[in-house]
């Protein structure tokens, strides 16, 4: 057990002017389950990509089984027995289950020809190994997220792996599936295979890890045995702050006047029987696992899907929301889940990103756009939201994740919405910006009387900022809670389905 398998020493990595990793260390012993922890954007993923050979480090070295490397190539890393399961799983949607599982193995063995019989038997063996049953001939694009995750794991345990790196493997899994995954990881441990488990969920670390390492803002904070640590210390290590966010309690809510009311809303394959209402000055949280229907619900409220049943009311009047244009007309705004693909125009300037949703309202009488006014409006939001930038004309890519997210928020606030829907608003946002955004959301609710719908799987985010919380599971709302009656553990249990419930 004490033999060191991998040692990363003084690894640094910069992207442009941004330091992603600043001389960090990581030591993993043979057969160890090691948890790499940290908030989004702390450099966890960057380190993984360096170990897997996807990025070249700017400094430092990696020692694997006693041999030192300045950098690893992808092929070298795989050759050494390092397997990575990325968050997006890196599987091929156009290929079959069998091929997805066996393809790395075939490549690793430098095969030139494909033996389809071998591919199938390898895949079957791998699936049996972790005790999963899946149709080998199915095309992966048609399977669920959890199944894709299992395929990625089955693929990783082939090729005599010595170290399996899992980047947030549980984000899409139910409690049952997490249990199954943990069983697999322990089984691998028995076989002497080390696991580097990347997560930001505390209870999982306590449950599975032998050792842990915490990064914050690209720096190593602490590395220790999982036995020597408690909840509070962990939060401090991860965030650099004591838990000081006070739970949000709105001053007064006019319960007779719902801005947005949803009745028995349903979407084929997406969700069913969703009913709730939201009042001015309120922050309503909706939380659930990835693939629980939370994103589909948000998209439906914004007109990206058309609801197949049920009713939506704005100010008590029934409305049809079939396109985002409809939603905007009804003063609904949506900060999407994936900032890079759904929120930002990466080749455009900060200013263009700010005015895009408001462009029609900037038209003067002759249909020409008053860019001067757009410029002034943007400047105002830069000031209000505390966006750090040089010039509005600079490219949006020059900004950090947090500031980019503030731009997306600013873009929507410029449209003067009455209902603001946010889907995972602080994913990939640094801690400072995260607190800024939370504080600003509270101000919006309290001072501007906005109704805010906060959809997130970040338990503490939902708990601290929402006065009411709905839990969504398999496309249905399973329970509703007031924030003051919950704590983090209880909420986490409710979301993943506690052990007692699923047993």
């Amino acid at each position, binding site marked *: 057990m004490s033999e060191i398998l991998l040692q990363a020493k003084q690894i640094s990595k910069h992207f442009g002017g941004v330091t992603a990793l600043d001389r960090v260390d990581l030591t993993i012993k043979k057969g160890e389950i090691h948890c790499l922890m940290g908030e989004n954007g702390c450099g966890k993923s960057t380190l993984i990509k360096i170990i897997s050979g996807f990025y070249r480090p700017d400094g430092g070295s990696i020692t694997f089984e006693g041999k030192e490397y300045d950098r690893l190539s992808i092929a070298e890393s795989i050759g050494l027995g390092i397997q990575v399961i990325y968050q997006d799983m890196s599987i091929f949607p156009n290929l079959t289950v069998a091929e997805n599982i066996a393809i790395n193995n075939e490549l690793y063995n430098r095969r030139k*020809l494909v033996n389809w019989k071998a591919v199938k038997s390898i895949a079957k063996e791998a699936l049996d190994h972790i005790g999963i049953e899946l149709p080998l001939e199915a095309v992966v694009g048609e399977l*669920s997220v959890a199944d894709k995750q299992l395929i990625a794991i089955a693929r990783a345990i082939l090729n005599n792996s010595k170290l399996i790196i899992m980047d947030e493997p549980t984000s899409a899994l139910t409690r049952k599936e997490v249990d199954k995954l943990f069983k697999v990881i322990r089984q691998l441990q028995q076989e002497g295979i080390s696991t580097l488990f990347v997560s930001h969920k505390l209870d999982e670390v306590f449950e599975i890890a032998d050792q842990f390492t915490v990064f914050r803002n690209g720096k190593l904070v602490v590395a220790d045995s999982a036995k020597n640590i408690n909840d509070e210390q962990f939060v401090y290590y991860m965030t650099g702050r004591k838990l000081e966010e006070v739970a949000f309690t709105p001053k007064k809510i006019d319960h007779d006047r719902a801005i947005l009311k949803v009745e028995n809303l349903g979407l084929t394959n*997406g969700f069913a029987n969703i009913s709730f209402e939201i009042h001015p000055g309120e922050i309503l949280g909706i939380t659930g696992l990835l693939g629980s229907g939370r994103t589909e619900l948000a998209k439906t409220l914004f007109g990206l899907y058309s609801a197949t049943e049920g009713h939506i009311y704005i100010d008590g009047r029934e409305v049809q929301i079939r396109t985002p244009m409809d939603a905007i007309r009804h003063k609904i705004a949506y900060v999407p889940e994936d900032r890079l693909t759904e929120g930002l125009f990466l080749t455009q300037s900060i200013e263009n990103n700010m005015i895009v949703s408001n462009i029609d309202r900037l038209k003067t009488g002759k249909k020409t756009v008053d860019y001067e006014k757009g410029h002034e409006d943007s400047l105002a939001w830069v000031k209000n939201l505390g966006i750090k930038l040089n010039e509005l004309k600079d490219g949006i890519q020059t900004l950090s994740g947090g500031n980019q997210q503030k731009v997306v928020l600013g873009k929507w606030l410029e449209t003067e919405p009455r209902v603001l829907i946010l889907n995972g608003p602080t994913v990939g946002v640094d801690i400072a910006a995260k607190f800024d955004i939370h504080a600003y959301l509270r101000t919006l609710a309290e001072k501007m009387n906005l109704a805010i719908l906060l959809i997130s799987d970040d338990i503490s985010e939902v708990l601290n900022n929402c006065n009411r919380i709905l839990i969504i599971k398999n496309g249905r709302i399973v329970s509703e809670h007031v924030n003051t009656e919950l704590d983090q553990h209880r909420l986490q249990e409710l979301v993943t389905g506690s052990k007692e419930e699923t047993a």
Partner: protein
Amino acid sequence: MKGKNLLKKNEFYIVIIIAVLACIIQAISGQFFTSNNLVDLLRSMIVPGMMAAGLFMVIVSGNIDVSFPYTAMLCMFAVTKWFSVINYQGPVFLAFLIAGLIGLVLGLLNGVLAAWLKLPTLIITLGTCTIFLGITQGVLQSSVISVLPAPMAKMAATNLFSVVNGETGLGSSMPVSILFLIAIYLIVGFIMKYTMLGRGIYAVGGDPVAAERAGFNVNFIRIFVFTFMGVVGGITGITQVTVSGMCQINFFDGYEMTIIAAVVLGGANIAGGSGTVIGTFLGVLLMKMISNNLILLGIPTNWSKFMTGILIIAGVSMSAYKSVLAKRRVASNILEDGHKEEA
């Protein structure tokens, strides 16, 4: 389950369309299922069929190539001219070899540019095809060669077999080069299905980032598909000469479009990642069935371009609209899991 799979397969539908079309042509003209018409059909498939096989690989890898007709044209003129000048008398095999090598160089150029520049390959190959055209017209000063070098003329005169339609007295002969068509489909089919390279082509077309992470050499794969297309283009150029018995600058006019259409009709996704070599063959067959039989169907030749356009648009629209509709729906059933757990 087996029957369901068949219904899911694109090839199944193309076969049905082909069968229906054949019956319609037969019913209208009574001339479809005649020996000479069928031989003519196969004969006319040789050149476009070979090109489609090469392009199929390029498209599966998520790229596009519009330069191959010009590659074929350049190789055709370069080799035929050179052989005429030196009055070459050796085996015809050498003509194919040299044309293949020239095609290899041209394809390599496309591949390297595509891998290096990472710009839309349509624009890259549009640029190179203009260069190829410029070389053919400017440097080689080519337009027509009516007298072929002896070995090529001999091959043009050799046929595998000939048939004569008893009723009409019209005859048709099957050129030797039909064997090339068969060979290329076997080779491409083998590469795509049974080699890691082929699976890599599918992988790159499906998700280039995932392919790189898995350890595929993505740049090599890109260069390979373009180079292979170049070689096929070169060989096709000489094949065309031996099928038609002469060289003409306008042989391959509009081929880029027709061949892309055939591959797409055959079920390959223009965005890459999917498609089968059998589908491609069927796509070419369908395409040629229509263009060859326009007259039998009573459509004047002047409108054949229009008809192929309609066919292409109809074919691609159906698959494109299917995915547009799919995007509007939630793909995998979130609700279903719930029922399972309840049960």
